[in-house]
């Protein structure tokens, strides 16, 4: 790696460590650790939420997929973006009003039972682990390519960095790392996009015409269907993408970092503008890579197409731009995995240890100790899993995480807020059926079973035809919650009155001002 490359890398890592140092001074309580004390402003949290979506998967993955498959690469952008409307309209404000640190807090605001909290925590942990393994395995492979370090060391390096941010800086540091990286990534993306447009004389029609001629697949490149040929599977994927966000623990956790529903709303407002703009720019990245790098070279560097954006940077801006983009891609991975560690640790330390095992009888100091140990535990465990998964094709784990979030978490969130007859039987069955059906169907899917050796994890015919089971598991989660509520005990109407009032008006969290 060149001197410039190393300097970018050192500068970004140094900046994030400096921010962590500053945040560590304000990291004194469990609330500071999990939610930065609820002290983030709307724009700060908005950029941080956007940062969760300006991930390696978006920046490198979508750009590469558009470069290779044209419109089909763009499906993910559409799903992720519309997902913000689901969060904004249906989930964000009630969640902010009812919850404290975790999703389980919100559900137990209505059903204060250990089994419910434990189940909600387990589904959060499962989602976080899948998401994390996919991120770490992807990160290891990418850093190997970008910086020329061996996979093992790359994973361990990422693991150590994320643990440092979380242990010392908690949510404050994690949010600021996310904000810094989101800003840098936007700058990098805008620069490349302008360079691409300049090559086409700032004429978008010329850009479309050129990629249509040169991509190798002709007109089909600008239509859907080059990658996703099974219509039902495509629908299933679109369901998981749009509904999954509203159930992802590390996204939901971001809404506890602001002081009230109004700020939560403003966060999403910021996030939709930033992410929307970014996803439009991914078209320029993808088409630029198709035109100026070429699919052969992209595939040669990485079969999944993940190197399209860095290679495009090199083609347009030489080593300096390539080094900058690589360093930012590294920061992107760090910021996302640090957020995942936090949400996993909160489910372990706050839900399972603090509330289920210790029944809430736990001091502030003990909470902090538990949170830190849980963070180390989640980090070490996922690093070990990632080291063993190097040769497996685990990219599907991200869409599986979305699918579980949509099937196990979203039904119970919506019912808790809006469904009067919802009861503990309904809550348990919604979570368990959503979680288990998603897991079982994926275990039988073409992601795991392929007749050809090396294509999937096991050799054999898949029993379930779809790569994404959301079209079945999401309705199952909703249906199980409804049937459970019908056959279970009578819902506690007085408790629902409290939840409904707090969710609607934020009475419990509103400032206590005497008039």
């Amino acid at each position, binding site marked *: 790696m060149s001197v410039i490359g190393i300097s970018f890398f050192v500068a970004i890592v140094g900046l994030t460590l400096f921010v962590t140092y500053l945040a560590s001074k304000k990291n004194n309580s469990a609330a500071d650790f999990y939610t930065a004390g609820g002290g983030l402003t709307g724009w700060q949290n908005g950029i941080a939420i956007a940062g969760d979506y300006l991930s390696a998967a978006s920046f490198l993955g979508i750009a590469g997929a558009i470069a290779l498959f044209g*419109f089909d690469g*763009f*499906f993910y952008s*559409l799903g992720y*973006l*519309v997902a*913000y*409307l*689901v969060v*904004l*309209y*249906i989930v964000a*404000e009630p969640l902010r009003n009812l919850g404290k640190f975790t999703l389980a807090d919100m559900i137990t605001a209505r059903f204060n039972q250990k089994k419910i909290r434990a189940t909600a925590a387990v589904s959060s942990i499962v989602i976080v682990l899948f998401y994390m393994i996919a991120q770490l395995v992807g990160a290891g492979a990418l850093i190997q390519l970008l910086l020329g370090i061996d996979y093992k060391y790359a994973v361990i390096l990422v693991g150590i960095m994320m643990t440092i941010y979380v242990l010392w800086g908690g949510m404050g540091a994690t949010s600021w790392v996310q904000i810094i990286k989101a800003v840098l990534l936007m700058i990098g993306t805008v620069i490349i996009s302008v360079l691409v447009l300049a090559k086409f004389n700032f004429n*978008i*029609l010329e850009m*479309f*015409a050129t990629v*249509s001629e040169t991509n190798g697949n002709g*007109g089909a490149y*600008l*239509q*859907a*269907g080059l990658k996703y040929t099974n*219509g039902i599977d*495509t*629908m299933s994927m*679109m369901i998981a993408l*749009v509904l999954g966000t509203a159930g992802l623990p590390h996204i939901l956790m971001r809404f506890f970092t602001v002081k009230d529903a*109004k700020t939560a*709303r*403003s966060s*999403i*407002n910021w996030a*939709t*503008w930033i992410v*929307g703009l970014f*996803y*439009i720019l991914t078209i320029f990245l993808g088409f630029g890579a198709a035109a100026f790098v070429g699919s052969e070279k992209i595939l040669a560097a990485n079969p999944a197409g993940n190197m399209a954006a860095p290679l495009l940077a090199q083609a347009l801006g030489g080593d300096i731009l390539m080094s900058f983009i690589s360093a930012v891609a590294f920061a992107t991975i760090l910021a996302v995995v640090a957020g995942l560690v936090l949400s996993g640790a909160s489910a372990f330390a706050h839900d399972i240890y603090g509330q289920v095992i210790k029944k809430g*009888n736990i*001091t*502030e*100091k*003990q909470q902090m100790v538990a949170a830190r140990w849980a963070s180390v535990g989640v980090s070490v465990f996922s690093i070990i899993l990632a080291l063993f998964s190097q040769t497996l094709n685990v990219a599907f784990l991200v869409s599986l995480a979305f699918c579980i979030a949509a099937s196990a978490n979203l039904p119970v969130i919506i019912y808790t807020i*809006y469904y009067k007859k919802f009861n503990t039987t309904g809550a348990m069955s919604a979570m368990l059926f959503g979680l288990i059906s998603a897991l079982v169907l994926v275990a039988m899917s073409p992601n795991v079973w392929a007749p050809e050796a090396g294509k999937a994890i096991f050799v054999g015919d898949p029993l379930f035809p779809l790569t994404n089971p959301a079209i079945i598991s999401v309705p199952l989660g909703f249906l199980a919650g409804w049937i459970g509520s019908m056959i279970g005990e009578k819902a506690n109407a*007085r408790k629902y*009155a*409290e939840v*409904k*009032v*707090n969710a*609607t*008006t*934020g*009475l*419990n969290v*509103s400032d*206590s*001002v*005497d*008039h």
Partner: protein
Amino acid sequence: MEQNLDRQLLKEEQDSKQAVAGQKSFTEQEYVNISESSEFKTLSKRKLGFIVPMSVLFFVIYFTLPLLSSFTDVLDGKAIGDITWIWVYSLVIFIMVWTFTIIYVKKAASFDKDAEAINDKAKAGEYK
């Protein structure tokens, strides 16, 4: 020794939490009264009357794209130059997301006023 200290710390923290919570915690009966009050019912109805149709609308607009692209070829034709209809539809979805976000933020601000009125009444003890 340390266990005793922890227990003492815990008790102190719980006491101070109760002291803070005491100012703004409401009884179960108050919540029931609020939920049955006409102003709350109106607010709740207005909110749902906004959220439900808007959500149905954005889901329909969103899912229509993959439905059309997977099972028909109406989006395959060229719209402007080499740009096919599916890109135009995608742009519509982007504009929809931004528009719906602006609409929500505006609308929610009007709900805030009604919610604050209820909260103020509750804090003044009028739902006891």
